[in-house]
């Protein structure tokens, strides 16, 4: 088989693989590791020079999500964690807050520039060829089938053939769309995200995340403070369908809260689109599977995608393995069915909840903060036990409309 060398040392890049994975985020690495563990020949390409940076993420993971990721990748080393978190403080528009205190570590804020690299290393250790700074600029098609990709490394272009291409190329989702699978999300389902990583903050409780709601603060979204240290945090915003850009609202919030920010510095600036709905019935074509943000696989309430991408990548890996072993590409369609069964059904419920929450007026949000306790809020944010929540809310005359939508 003909071989190429991108650089003079290290592994040789083959001209043909079983699977080419596009994108070195959690979704891409999860797919690549699952496939390489089974002995398939996998190449993973990342466009950016450094896997995991700059982040487009607030970096939060619950303990439950970390366990799921560890089932696939093994024990996550300490260096990947910036800070453990034991609860949340959620602020209504009038400033009243609801405290969620787990009394023990319940989640973590990760250091993604370390974490994502570690994930990619596990894929590489399992046998995958991993190459950063390599852009996949097109797909190779024969008729309606995808048969590989075109890559660009330092201006040199190479054709890499494969039985299956995995599009884990993030929110832009260009690989799938170039292949002819329409994954374009509606504007209403894409949040505008903007974030500063800030230091020298005066945090109320640096073991708790803080969430600020309100239509003046963050229209159809929220502001978050996710601590990465005693006085360091990701301070960000996600909003939808707003006339003014996300940055305007975040800067305004920071200006209006000098108690926290008067002495702070900005050490990193992040921005990006966050898919918050619009799950796809079909994420597959002959020779192509779409994973993670590219397939809008994100929790619509909190906008977190690391766990979803990891699970989807694992499902994709299992299905692709079967399709290749049986030499039958129609098996790839099982990915749709399995993902919808394991994740899609639940996430669609969460999406409905989001549609209700994002339309709430400031008055309704204030009243919610009066009625809900910390425990209720946890279930609310996970989209669980909505019926029980409905029963709490329906007792309050002002919240009957909201209650009905949940029941």
């Amino acid at each position, binding site marked *: 088989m003909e071989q190429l060398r991108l650089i003079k040392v290290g592994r040789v890049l083959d001209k043909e693989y079983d699977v080419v994975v596009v994108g070195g985020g959690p979704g891409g690495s999860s797919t690549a590791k699952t496939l390489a563990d089974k002995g398939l020949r996998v190449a993973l390409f990342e466009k950016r020079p450094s896997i995991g940076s700059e982040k*487009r993420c607030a970096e939060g993971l619950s303990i439950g999500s970390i366990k799921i990721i560890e089932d696939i990748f093994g024990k996550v080393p300490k260096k990947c964690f910036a800070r453990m978190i034991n609860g949340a403080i959620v602020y209504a528009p009038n400033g009243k807050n609801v405290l969620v205190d787990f009394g023990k570590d319940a989640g973590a804020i990760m250091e993604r520039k370390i974490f994502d690299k570690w994930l990619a290393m596990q894929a590489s250790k399992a046998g995958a060829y991993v190459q950063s700074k390599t852009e996949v600029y097109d797909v190779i098609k024969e008729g309606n089938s995808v048969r590989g990709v075109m890559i660009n490394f330092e201006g040199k272009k190479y054709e890499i053939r494969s039985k299956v291409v995995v599009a884990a190329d993030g*929110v832009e989702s260009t690989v799938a769309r170039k292949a002819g699978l329409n994954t374009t*999300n509606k*504007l209403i389902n894409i949040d*505008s*995200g903007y974030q500063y990583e800030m230091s020298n903050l005066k945090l109320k409780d640096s073991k708790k995340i803080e969430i600020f709601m309100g239509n003046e603060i963050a229209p159809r979204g929220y502001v978050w403070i996710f601590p990465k240290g005693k006085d360091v945090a990701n301070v960000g915003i996600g909003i939808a369908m707003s006339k003014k850009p996300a940055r305007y609202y975040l800067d305004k919030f920071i200006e209006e809260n000098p108690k926290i920010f008067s002495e702070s510095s900005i050490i990193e*600036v992040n*921005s990006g*689109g966050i898919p918050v709905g619009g799950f796809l019935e079909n994420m597959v074509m002959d020779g192509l599977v779409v994973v993670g943000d590219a397939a809008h696989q994100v929790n619509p309430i909190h906008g977190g995608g690391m766990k979803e991408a990891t699970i989807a990548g694992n499902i994709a890996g299992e299905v692709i393995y079967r399709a290749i072993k049986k030499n039958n590409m129609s098996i790839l369609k099982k990915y749709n069915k399995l993902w919808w069964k394991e994740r899609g059904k639940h996430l669609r419920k969460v999406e409905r909840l989001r549609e209700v929450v994002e339309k709430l007026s400031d008055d309704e949000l204030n009243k919610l903060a009066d009625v809900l306790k910390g425990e209720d809020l946890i279930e609310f944010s996970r989209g669980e036990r909505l019926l029980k929540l409905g029963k709490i809310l329906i007792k309050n005359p002002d919240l009957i409309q909201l209650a009905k939508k949940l029941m």
Partner: protein
Amino acid sequence: MGWTIDREKCLKCGACVSVCPFLALELKDDGIKIDRNKCTLCGICEKVCPVGAIKVNKGGKSAR
């Protein structure tokens, strides 16, 4: 008619790319590229940009 991209403001995050129904935008090393043959000036990219770096001008003089 046309658009302007404020290269100083743009963070190359790709939010605009993800919503373009016509695949007219691409995220390159040096920033966002718009394919004028594909762009219909619908303005969706302007609405999603987190930093307000894209301005779409649907009428009048060329802003490019």
